[in-house]
């Protein structure tokens, strides 16, 4: 009996090993859009194997409850997989919250099952698990709320905010250390979790929408690291590996995002971008040149090379399908059209690529910032749709600008710049954009979707 039992355990461990390999392959195949869908299959097979392996473990008896939970999770998961592409950032934030919720709950349950017979190392890892998990739960919910615009997107700041946050975290860590030394004081445990939950809320309150790509990535990293910590607690190598993969993915993405904004993590988290200076530029009214859809269509159809620069405003206006019609119309006339994608355009890493791919624009037309910046001087028209700060030339030249040093798309170097914008209100970060006052810039005032639609109609005018 015991030999049979040991054999079963070995087989389950081997199944976990196979799942780990499949998970790594799954991420490896994401390197290119041509192999990426194999990656999903690998991930799915790995997941199913791991779950079956777990269900076959010895000592499980309450299968009834497991099945109910699995079914319930599936019922919730299906609609979460079917959300509109424009809602992907908030969906992603929500799923970070769910992942972290799972980790925090399992960690808490394990604590109560084991305490006080818990080693110091184990208690340390468990504290990391629930603190990281807890702050990710509420932090991600806050981020999702801001992205869904249930909560105000503008950063909320108050005096001594950072001090309050640091103190909260410090108290949580003191409790963690106390529990490591005296695991029998389990009355302290709920306070540690509670502090982590409150800390998560306070951490996201001062963060504005423009910083969401970095914050979502960072929360992704935290969710991964807390899952890895859970792997230590449960002695599950598969979980350690999956958590480490997810953690490194989140950290790499947050490094890429913060580099693309020329800011450090601490600056993103504690800098409260965006509630500054709306007053500075308010006094003077500088002249701008504007154009009608007819004029814009005439300039575009006379161009040889056009680069379209999409931003969050395109997503808000749901203009991506009209943009696709514009792309078709211009391509038919022999105009070379490309899209310039800034890493932090939109509200999460890769946001613009997904929206444009949804609108059926071929992915080889979507070009990253570093590759396309050299092309702007040879470009006839740069058409900016709903992007602002990522095109602001002040980032290159004006040392007093809050975004000075941030890498931008050099749209001002194109022969003609056209900017579709609702009004002259400053962008999300509240920073004035000198691009709008340049001699080669034409402002196209209006809703992005309607304006692009009008241009398309003008372009097609002769034929239909």
């Amino acid at each position, binding site marked *: 009996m015991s030999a049979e039992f040991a054999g079963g355990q070995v087989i389950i461990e081997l199944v976990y090993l196979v799942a780990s390999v499949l998970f790594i392959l799954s*991420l490896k195949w994401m390197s290119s*859009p041509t192999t990426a869908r194999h990656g999903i299959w690998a991930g799915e097979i790995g997941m199913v194997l791991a779950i079956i392996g777990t269900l076959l473990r010895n000592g499980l*008896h309450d299968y009834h*409850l497991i099945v109910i939970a699995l079914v319930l999770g599936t019922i919730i998961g299906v609609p979460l997989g079917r959300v509109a592409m424009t809602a992907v950032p908030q969906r992603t934030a929500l*799923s970070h919250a769910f992942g972290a919720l799972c980790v925090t709950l*399992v960690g808490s349950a394990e604590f109560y099952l084991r305490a006080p017979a818990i080693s110091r190392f184990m208690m340390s890892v468990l504290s990391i698990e629930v603190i990281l998990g807890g702050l990710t739960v509420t932090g991600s919910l806050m981020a999702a709320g801001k992205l869904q615009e249930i909560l105000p997107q503008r950063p909320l700041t108050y005096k001594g905010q950072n001090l309050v946050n640091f103190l909260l975290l410090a108290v949580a860590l003191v409790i963690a250390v106390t529990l490591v030394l005296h695991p029998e004081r389990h009355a302290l445990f709920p306070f540690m979790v509670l502090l982590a939950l409150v800390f998560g809320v306070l951490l996201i309150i001062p963060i504005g929408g423009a910083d969401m790509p970095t914050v979502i990535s960072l929360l992704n990293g935290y969710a991964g690291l807390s899952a890895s910590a859970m792997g230590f607690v449960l002695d599950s190598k598969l979980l350690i590996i999956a958590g480490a993969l997810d953690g490194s993915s989140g950290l790499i*993405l947050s490094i890429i995002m913060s580099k693309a904004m020329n800011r450090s993590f601490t600056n993103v988290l504690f800098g409260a971008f965006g509630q500054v200076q709306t007053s500075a530029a308010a006094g003077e009214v500088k002249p701008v040149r504007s154009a009608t859809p007819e004029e814009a269509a005439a300039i575009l159809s006379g161009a040889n090379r056009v680069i379209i620069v999409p931003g969050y405003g395109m997503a808000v206006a749901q203009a991506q399908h009209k943009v696709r019609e514009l792309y078709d119309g211009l391509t038919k006339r022999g105009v070379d059209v490309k899209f310039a994608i800034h890493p932090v355009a939109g509200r999460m890493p890769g946001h613009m690529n997904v929206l444009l*791919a*949804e609108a059926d624009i071929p992915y080889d037309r979507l070009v990253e910032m570093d590759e396309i910046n050299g092309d702007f001087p040879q470009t006839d028209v740069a058409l900016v749709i709903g992007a602002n700060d990522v095109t602001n030339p002040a980032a290159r030249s004006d040392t007093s600008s809050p975004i000075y040093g941030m890498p931008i798309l050099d749209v001002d170097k194109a022969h003609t710049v056209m900017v579709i914008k609702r009004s002259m209100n400053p962008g999300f970060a509240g920073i004035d954009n000198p691009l709008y006052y340049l001699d080669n810039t034409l402002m196209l005032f209006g809703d992005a979707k309607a304006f692009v639609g009008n241009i398309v109609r003008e372009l097609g005018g002769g034929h239909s």
Partner: protein
Amino acid sequence: MNSSSSLIDALFIFVLAGFIGFEVIRRVSPLLHTPLMSLTNALDAIAVVGAIVLVGEHKSQLAAIFGFIAVVAATSNIVGGFFITDRMLKMFKSSRPATKQ
């Protein structure tokens, strides 16, 4: 529950997996950063195995309830995560067959 040697083993695994993660994910095309995030999210929900054990062993009422909620949360991430990643990746099409220029 663990001997110190198995904890060291776990640390080795964590560090090595972290390195693999960095090297593999560094190579992911920026085009696919959004599906990458939803995929890693689904994979991360492998935490469901820990929650399943909590529910199945039913060692205490609290553990079973926490485990139950945890299984629901993680399963919804698995199902939703794979589903939406697949939907996104299906949309990425190349222009090469038609208008390669």
